């Protein structure tokens, strides 16, 4: 039986603000920050997630929708296990891959080939998995002899290809993805589409946070609306986007 799921039960996450002064102007900051600022004995903290529950089974692709600072990335990081919830629990089963920055660990002084190695290790590949994929990754980058030159001399588009090629070579059961995987220039994007489709088709369930509604519509079949760290609505992508726009126009 294949069992792949990820589940969040009533998670609350308070992020302590370490060097904030006691006299912090709570009301002013509340205007900008996502969560509610608490100022108690244990210091100042921001409630970044407030009683959020989410349950994904096979085939669920959930879009996280909300303003900047509404808790989308924080929720992804909590699901990934980077943040431990203050209360509540996250349960998961399956190979989770979290892609928050497809070029994490990039060192521009080193060659493309060396960076592929670093990025792959940080995104969760082992040396044996990398050995299996490295030729495909390098082929796909289409960087020719540039692959053995320092990334410092690459164009922005060329640099993006490295992370893209590595990220799409992974095959997770569960994917946690922030802002999609960029593909760089248009000519490359054409070839990238096919590879992306292959990549997404292998995924059993996914949580995607993005501001691109086209991306969310094309990849997701459910959506969660977050406001100030609270889950406001869960449903179809179009319904939730509609509600999101309504609440925007009211303000």
């Amino acid at each position, binding site marked *: 039986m294949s069992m792949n799921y990820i589940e969040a039960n009533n998670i609350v996450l308070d992020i302590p603000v*370490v060097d904030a002064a006691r006299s912090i102007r709570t009301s002013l900051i509340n205007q900008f920050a996502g969560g509610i600022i608490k100022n108690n004995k244990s210091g100042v903290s921001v409630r970044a997630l407030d009683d959020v529950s989410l349950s994904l089974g096979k085939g669920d692709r959930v879009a996280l929708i909300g303003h900047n600072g509404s808790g989308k990335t924080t929720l992804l990081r909590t699901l*990934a296990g980077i943040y431990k*919830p203050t209360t509540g629990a996250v349960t998961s*089963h399956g190979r*989770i891959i*979290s892609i928050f920055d497809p070029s994490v660990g990039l060192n521009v002084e080193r060659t493309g080939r060396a960076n592929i190695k670093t990025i792959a290790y940080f995104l969760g590949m082992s040396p044996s998995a990398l050995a299996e994929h490295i030729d495909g990754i390098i082929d796909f980058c289409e960087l020719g002899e540039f692959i053995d030159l320092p990334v410092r001399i690459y164009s922005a588009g060329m640099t993006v290809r490295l992370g893209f090629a590595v990220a799409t070579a992974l095959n997770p059961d569960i994917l946690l993805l922030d802002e999609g995987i960029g593909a760089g220039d248009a000519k490359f994007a054409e070839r990238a589409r096919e590879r992306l489709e292959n990549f997404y088709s292998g995924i059993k369930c996914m949580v995607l946070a993005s501001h691109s509604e086209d991306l969310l519509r094309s990849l997701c079949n459910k959506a969660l609306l977050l406001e100030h760290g609270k889950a406001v609505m869960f449903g179809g992508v179009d319904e939730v986007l509609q509600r999101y726009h309504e609440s925007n126009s009211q303000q």
Partner: protein
Amino acid sequence: MDGLSGTRVKIMGEFEPKETFKYQLTSAIEDIIRGLRLWWLWYYLPVSEIQSRYRRTFLGPFWATISMGVFIAMIGLIYSSLWQVDISHFLPYLASGYIIWILISTIINEGTMTFIQHEHIVRNTVVPFSVFPIICVVRNLMLFLHHFTVYLFVAVIFSVAPGWGSLLFFPALVLVCITGFWVVLVLGIVSARFRDIPHFISSIILILLLLTPILFEADSLRGKFSLLVDWNILYHYIEILRAPLLGKFASALSWIMVSAFTIFSALAGLTVYAKYRTSIIFWL
């Protein structure tokens, strides 16, 4: 095992057996074991960092080695006439002591920055935090191997005879690395929370170089200042590595002090890590 992901059921948060210290301890130990298993990260990353630090240089990491060689030669010449000791005796002592001092002091200094420096990676990947102290120790061990050529050079010139005691160099190095890991872990955590610590440590380290028998011999301090020798834990760590390099045995006191401190650092490190592991991310 495939990198950072696992297929077992993973639960974090309240459904765990209640947040007892025993539970925190188990997860801290698990985290460290996972970190140790990611050998490709802690081997490849230091290599990568060292290579990019010395990119496009002809001598690479040997630049540090050469400047150290010149420093040791100069200090050796001046101090041996200052203390009026035989240079063929003093220079091997100084060379071995100084490269060991650089190993230990750089681990401590860089250790304070271990989480701060890798903030972006900590925030955006699920790498166990214990990997970063391992990276710090491994990188400095690699640089130590480069600096070791200075000692070898001096040892050959002054024909330092290795003895049976020399074999103890390897267990001594293991103890230094184990202690180094725990010290870096604790300093990294404390420094992430209190940003004054890295500055404090680097000024203390400078003073300790002058107070610890490295540029002078321990015997010249005995008597009035013997406290600086007998109770200086850094001296004992240096001594268990230095004595083998000079073909001698370090004193039993040094081995006892080092063993005791290694155990203490492991217990203290594990306690701190268990208690604050999940808070580190909020302090970065």
